[in-house]
């Protein structure tokens, strides 16, 4: 019998089988899992970990090796793609994530000035090298590559408010930008898989149903996300999509997503979501505010709620705050492990 590794649990979950317990993930990328305590434990820190593949791998491995999550995941930010395509980035400091400080272009009209994403350049290449290192170092782990979603990348290349307006006012050129971005993301995703990532998570915090509404989500976000799924899924064991905020306005559009699993925010009622998109594997949605606040009883209840409402994969609802304690994070893994004991007890 195949050994029950973290990676196998997720393969089973995404394949529609019933694993011995739900996987517990925090993918990386926008879904940040790095905290001050974890950096202390790993002995390496931001911002070096954003730039040096060995340091990146060392930090990513810490979450898995200390039993916090079933996965390792890189990178630790959502600026790699935009920087590669021409945006200016401030890498932040020990406790602040990198952020875009200069847009690549002023308007979608200048789409031709954007650089095509080259996965073997700059910090994109750092991510690839870190993935190769992690592939050797953590054989049983879920090896998660991360991509910033198309709308989020595009709204880092053009000022977000401007970009949102141009979706309506200059739809043709907005599509041109998104096509370029999606081509780049496919190239980066395939390169991550080539480097050893077995799964890919795409997080699109700027492309939510709450922001775009169903019409623009269907016209702009959905086709890009599905193009990514179609290109990446046949080459890896699964593609997870995370969309922030309330999902209700876009349930019909979400039902058309071609991902392996959908990850939802804390405001989403997972039972309702499951009913709206039958057959989809659902991941979520423990409040990161509750995790940061650190009340153990509350966190335990929230983990149980997510699982009871039908989370197939337990995960924080968003990226973790860097002040979240290891004790609080461990409660999530404790919750999925208690399910394993229940399964055993039932037999």
């Amino acid at each position, binding site marked *: 019998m195949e050994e029950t590794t973290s990676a196998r649990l997720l393969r089973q979950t995404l394949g529609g089988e019933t694993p011995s317990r739900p996987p517990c993930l925090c993918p990386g990328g926008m879904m940040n899992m790095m905290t001050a305590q974890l950096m202390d434990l790993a002995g390496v820190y931001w911002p070096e970990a954003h730039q040096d593949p060995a340091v990146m791998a060392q930090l990513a491995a810490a979450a898995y090796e200390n039993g916090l999550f079933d996965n390792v995941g890189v990178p630790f930010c959502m600026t790699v793609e935009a920087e590669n395509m021409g945006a200016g980035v401030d890498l932040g400091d020990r406790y602040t994530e990198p952020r875009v400080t200069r847009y690549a272009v002023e308007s979608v009209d200048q789409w031709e000035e954007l650089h095509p994403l080259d996965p073997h350049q700059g910090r994109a290449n750092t991510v690839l090298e870190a993935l190769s290192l992690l592939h050797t170092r953590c054989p049983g782990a879920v090896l998660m590559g991360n991509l910033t979603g198309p709308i989020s990348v595009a709204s880092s290349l053009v000022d977000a408010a401007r970009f949102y*307006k141009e979706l309506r006012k200059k739809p043709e050129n907005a599509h041109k930008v998104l096509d370029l971005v999606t081509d780049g993301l496919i190239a980066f995703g395939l390169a991550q898989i080539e480097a050893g990532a077995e799964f890919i998570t795409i997080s699109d915090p700027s492309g939510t149903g*709450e922001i*775009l509404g169903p019409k623009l989500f269907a016209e702009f976000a959905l086709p890009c996300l599905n193009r990514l799924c179609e290109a990446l899924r046949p080459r890896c064991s699964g593609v997870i999509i995370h969309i922030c905020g309330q999902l209700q306005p876009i349930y019909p559009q979400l039902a058309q997503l071609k991902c392996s699993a959908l990850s939802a925010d804390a405001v989403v009622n997972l039972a309702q979501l499951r009913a709206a998109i039958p057959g989809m594997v659902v991941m979520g949605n423990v409040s990161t505010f509750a995790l940061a606040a650190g009340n153990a009883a509350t966190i335990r209840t929230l983990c149980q709620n997510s699982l009871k409402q039908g989370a197939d994969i337990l995960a924080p609802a968003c990226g973790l705050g860097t002040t979240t304690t290891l004790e609080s994070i461990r409660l999530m893994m404790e919750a999925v492990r208690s399910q394993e004991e229940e399964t055993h007890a039932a037999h």
Partner: protein
Amino acid sequence: MAEKDALLAELARCVLEMEDDAVVNVAKEYVEAGFDAYEGITEGLAKGMEKAGQLYEEEEYFVPELLICSDAMYNGLEILKPHLKRDDSSKGCGVLIGVVEGDTHDIGKNLVKIMMETAGFDVHDLGRDVPVSEFIAKAKEMGTGIVCMSTLMTTTMGNMKKVIDGLVAEGIRDQFKVMVGGGPLSTAFAEKIGADAYTSNAAEAAKRARELVATA
């Protein structure tokens, strides 16, 4: 009168229907006809923005639509603002205005600012996402006047009370009238946190500010 009403309706429609270029000519036509700029804002542009806000709440409009509506409103304001007749009755009275920390929604605040200026107040705009300490520091500098705070979010409403508590702690609460406004607020909330007034729109805010100063 029919022409004025038609132009006011057209100003509102331009804002509501995201006509951010067309609104400019309508606003010009309105002022060239000699109609009152103040009403052009309250009965035209602001009405359109109010309806856009309603559509947003009803999930007919989303962020991109609302951004273009507000562009249309600001484009119209640019034309109307120079034609506002300044009323000198409240001259010399300072108004401190800002969106409380954690919130960046400033359309309502900006409208109130324009109305307050038109009513003759001396307005200090702290902008949006303003920390409690900044309100207090500026209030201390002013010594007396009106403090206006707004927020559109329930999560940041608590910061209004912190500002009031700060004024109390500094011993200057009695030197100021405190006014609050924004989507989730109510008169009951204003009373609960110890504010002097809640108003539901910009024109009402300016009117109420005058009354507060007159009775002070």
